[in-house]
């Protein structure tokens, strides 16, 4: 029964257009709101008003009292002003009141104010005081100024005695002759500051006084009254409360709201007084009704606005949803090919709802299909995963929460020696880990649970594992927790790193290898920064003046660049504080490094130095021995001029003794003597040059001249052997940068060898030729050729070896030394010979320029 009705309703609703429905809905909402809220709110407002009223009343009462207080205070102030007024002092100066003048009536002023009271002061007060009195120090009234018709109350003197006895109390409200008065007393002094008595003002508290006190009040509905605390009767009331005087407060409560307050200011007044504020209940009720009416109006407006906003909101939201749905529908019709009804008329929301239902069913169907496909895929993937797991190079073990093995891949079987069936359900830590590592493994398990970030890479730990045979090996363990349907699993990757460890150890030891080298090993990169330098390189670094990871000096930097550029190793020599090092700069082009391997050649260099020294010595000795061999020749050479000198000298002395001989002749002879003497000197000089040991020098020398000198030294032997020398010397001087003595020695040596070789030949066939010039290479050359005995081919190889000689008497040092000398000149000496036909020696020496260059370098 329900169903058809609901369907009917639904159909009805489907036909209503959306805005209409929205408007209806909005109106309904507003009406419902009004109906529900109005009584509740009215009641609530009434309550709030009452509470508010109470508060307002209290405020108003306290305001009234405050106003009253300030009003009375103005009287007190006036009194104080009058009492200390100049006129008062001036007036009192000559006055003196006798104490026994009791019976004498006080002086009375009625129409005219007394001298001591400036009229302006009194006139300024809103309510004039009824009387102003002057009393003496004993409180006896001496002068009275009556401002109204009322006579001075009879109870005044006694009241004054009481009032003035207490000096503190100067102002209070009291009841005199049944009327309420405010009594204000102030001490007066004459001009010479003698205390004369008091000035007392009496102010009648009646309707006028109370009205004046409330003059600044905002509302007129308030009535203030003074109430007798004992009898609870009203003693005085303001304006419209005249009728209330004398009535009891309790009787008035039906008509008025009364707030009674006690005085603080005048508290110890002899009369117990209360200050009451009265407000008529009628007034309050009227106010209340008007407020409720206003509130109701407001509510009505509010409900209308709410209804309107609702309608608007509804329309807006529905159109929004409409548009969204339409878009979804469009999309789904395109994506899923589901027909959707076009929401032309009627209630789009409901139409949409129907459509969405069908859409959802379509989607569900699609999802079912996809799930089926997905499951198949998952199974496939699972199979693949298992295959991957099985094929993994690392042992992969899956354990459950309790640490028991649930999966054990084939690599794990191989690594640990347990078969899968053996391992399953065993505790992983006990099965594969060493005792010491179990705790660490469990800690890692715990740690990986703590780390909840799924993306964080698993922490690797190195532990010690043990296989079935008990062999221990280092492993790297990574654990990845896997949450599957409320069950926690851990996939544990255990990698055998014993091989890697061994390699690492080897690499470490290899890395330390250059460091242990007692010789410098360095690595410099392309920008010239020392990347690595072992300890032995400190001396070299000091020499460079740089430290590790700093740049080497510019020269070396360039050199490194050059070596890298050329890709060819280069050797350099440096002398550091540690000695002389030969540095091999080997480029590592692929990495952009230059490795430098140092070699300590201090000993080699020292030996070379020593050898050079020895050689110099040897050259010298050889020279001496050559000289020794030539002694005869030299002696003959020297004998020539000496003999000539002797002859000339003796000839002269004889002639002179005998007195014969022309003067001219004698002079010529003597000139001859000096000539021959210098000739002898020349020879000796040359000889000394040969004999004296000198440090090697380099100077510009003409090879032609050197040859001439050398020939002069062998002249004697040459003559003995009757050898003529053929000179084919270069026409221009052949200048070379040489040590002349050494080169002369070499030439001499060659000439002597030639002479020796020529001895075997018949005298007339002997031929010796010397040639100088410039070779094609630009070097200067000396060529010494003889047609003597020649040198056997096998001896030619050893010609320049030390202590090799074909002569019976020779030391075998001559050519060896010659070669050394020429090599030191950066020259070259070579020999060629045909046995029986002769020998040729060629010495090549760099010309001046080249030598200069090489020296400079």
């Amino acid at each position, binding site marked *: 029964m329900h169903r058809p009705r609901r369907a009917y309703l639904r159909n009805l609703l489907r036909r209503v257009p959306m805005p209409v429905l929205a408007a209806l809905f909005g109106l309904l909402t507003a009406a419902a709101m009004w109906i529900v809220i109005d009584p509740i709110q009215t009641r609530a407002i009434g309550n709030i008003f009452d509470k508010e009223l109470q508060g307002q009343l209290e405020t108003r009462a306290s305001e009234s009292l405050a106003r009253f207080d300030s009003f009375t205070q103005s009287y007190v102030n006036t009194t104080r002003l009058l009492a200390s007024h100049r006129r008062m002092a001036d007036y009192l100066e000559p006055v003196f009141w006798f104490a026994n003048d009791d019976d004498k009536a006080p002086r009375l002023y009625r129409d005219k104010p007394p001298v001591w009271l400036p009229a302006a002061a009194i006139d300024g007060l809103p309510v004039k005081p009824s009387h102003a009195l002057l009393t003496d120090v004993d409180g006896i009234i001496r002068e009275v100024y009556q401002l109204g018709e009322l006579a001075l109350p009879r109870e005044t003197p006694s009241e004054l005695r009481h009032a003035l006895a207490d000096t503190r109390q100067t102002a209070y409200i009291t009841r005199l002759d049944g009327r309420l008065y405010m009594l204000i007393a102030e001490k007066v002094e004459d001009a010479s500051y003698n205390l004369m008595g008091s000035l007392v003002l009496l102010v009648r508290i009646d309707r006028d006084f109370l009205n004046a006190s409330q003059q600044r009040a905002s509302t007129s509905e308030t009535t203030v009254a003074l109430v007798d605390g004992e009898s609870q009767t009203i003693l005085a009331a303001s304006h419209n409360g005249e009728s209330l005087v004398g009535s009891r407060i309790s009787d008035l409560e039906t008509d008025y709201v009364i707030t009674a307050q006690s005085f603080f200011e005048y508290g110890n007044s002899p009369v117990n007084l209360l200050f009451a504020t009265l407000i008529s209940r009628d007034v309050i009720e009227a106010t209340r009704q008007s407020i409720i009416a206003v509130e109701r109006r407001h509510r009505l407006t509010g409900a209308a606005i709410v209804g309107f906003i609702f309608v608007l909101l509804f329309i807006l939201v529905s159109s929004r949803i409409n548009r969204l749905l339409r878009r979804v529908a469009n999309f789904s019709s395109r994506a899923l090919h589901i027909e959707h009804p076009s929401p032309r008329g009627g209630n789009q929301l409901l139409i949409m709802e129907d459509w969405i239902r069908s859409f959802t069913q379509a989607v569900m169907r699609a999802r079912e299909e996809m799930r089926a496909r997905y499951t198949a895929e998952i199974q496939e993937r699972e199979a693949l995963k298992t295959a991957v797991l099985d094929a993994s190079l690392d042992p992969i073990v899956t354990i459950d929460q309790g640490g028991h093995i649930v999966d054990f891949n084939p690599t794990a079987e191989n690594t640990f020696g347990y078969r899968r069936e053996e391992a399953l359900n065993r505790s992983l830590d006990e099965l594969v880990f060493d005792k010491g590592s179990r705790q660490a493994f469990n800690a890692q398990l715990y740690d990986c649970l703590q780390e909840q970030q799924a993306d964080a890479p698993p922490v690797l730990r190195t532990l010690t594992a043990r296989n079935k045979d008990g062999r221990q090996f280092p492993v790297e363990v990574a654990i990845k927790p896997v949450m599957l349907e409320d069950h926690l699993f851990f996939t544990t990757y255990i990698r055998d790193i014993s091989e890697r460890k061994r390699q690492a150890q080897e690499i470490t030891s290899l890395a330390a290898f250059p460091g242990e080298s007692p010789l410098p090993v360095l690595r410099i990169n392309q920008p010239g920064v020392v990347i690595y330098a072992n300890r032995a390189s400190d001396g070299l670094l000091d020499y460079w003046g740089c430290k590790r990871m700093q740049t080497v000096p510019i020269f070396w930097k360039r050199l490194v660049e050059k070596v890298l550029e050329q890709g060819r190793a280069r050797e350099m020599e440096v002398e550091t504080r540690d000695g002389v090092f030969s540095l091999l700069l080997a480029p590592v082009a692929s990495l952009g490094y230059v490795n430098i391997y140092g070699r300590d050649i201090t000993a080699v260099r020292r030996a070379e130095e020593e050898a050079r020294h020895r050689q110099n010595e040897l050259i010298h000795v050889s020279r001496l021995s050559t000289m020794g061999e030539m002694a*005869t020749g030299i002696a003959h050479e020297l004998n020539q001029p000496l003999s000539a000198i002797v002859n000339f000298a003796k000839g002269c002395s004889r002639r002179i003794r005998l007195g014969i001989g022309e003067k001219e002749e004698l002079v010529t002879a003597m000139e001859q003597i000096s000539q021959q003497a210098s*000739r002898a000197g020349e020879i000796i000089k040359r000889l000394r040059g040969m004999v004296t040991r000198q440090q090697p020098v380099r100077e510009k020398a003409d090879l032609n001249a050197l040859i001439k000198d050398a020939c002069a030294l062998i002249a004697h032997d040459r003559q003995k052997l009757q050898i003529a020398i053929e000179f084919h010397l270069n026409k221009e001087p052949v200048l070379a940068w040489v040590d002349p003595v050494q080169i002369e020695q070499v030439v001499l040596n060659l000439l002597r060898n030639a002479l020796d070789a020529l001895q075997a030949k018949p005298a007339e066939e002997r031929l010796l030729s010397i040639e100088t010039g410039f070779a094609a290479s630009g070097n200067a050359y000396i060529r010494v050729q003889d047609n003597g005995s020649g040198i056997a081919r096998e001896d030619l190889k050893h010609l320049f070896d030390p202590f090799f000689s074909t002569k019976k008497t020779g030391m075998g040092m001559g050519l060896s030394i010659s070669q050394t000398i020429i090599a030191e000149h950066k020259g070259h000496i070579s020999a060629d010979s045909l046995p029986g036909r002769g020998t040729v020696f060629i010495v090549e020496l760099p010309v001046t320029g080249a030598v200069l260059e090489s020296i400079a370098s």
Partner: protein
Amino acid sequence: MTENEKTSSPTVFVVDDDEAMRSSLQWLIESVGLRVECYASAESFLEAYYPGRSGCLLLDVRMPGMGGLELQEYLRRHEISIPVIIITGHGDVPMSVRAMKEGAIDFIEKPFNDELLLDAIRNALAVDERQRQEQTLRAELASCLATLTPREHEVMEMVTAGKSNKEIASALGVSAKTVEAHRAKVMDKMKASSLAELVRMSIMARQ
């Protein structure tokens, strides 16, 4: 100086390749009034020299081209008996010895003691003089001998050998008287005044 003078007065020939040496020697030797001729080589000396010129030869052993020893040998081969004084440098002893063996009459070491040199020269000149005289004598002797008959030759030989007339007569198979006559003839022909002189002549002739 005339050609005659040149041939008659003795000359000191100086052969040395060193120019200073030559001129200084000339200067020294001329100081004692001797004639000096200088030659730079053996060859030039041989060109200028002819046998019969009196004098002596001052020869340097060490010379380019023909050395002193060769020159000496050449002179000997050509029977030129000019006295040779060898000039040697210090220490040329083996050479000097060879020169002396070749017939040099003296050798002087450089540098020279002038007195020694001059003495040697004087001595050499004297030897030359004597040689020349002997040569003249021998020439005369030869011409005398040439006049002797063969028999007289025999007799002279035997006489100078110290044999008595009787021994000679018995050896030759002639009478003592004949021997006596030959002897007288020989003495006469040889212009010998005594037997002693004859003996000297015969020795000279035999040299």
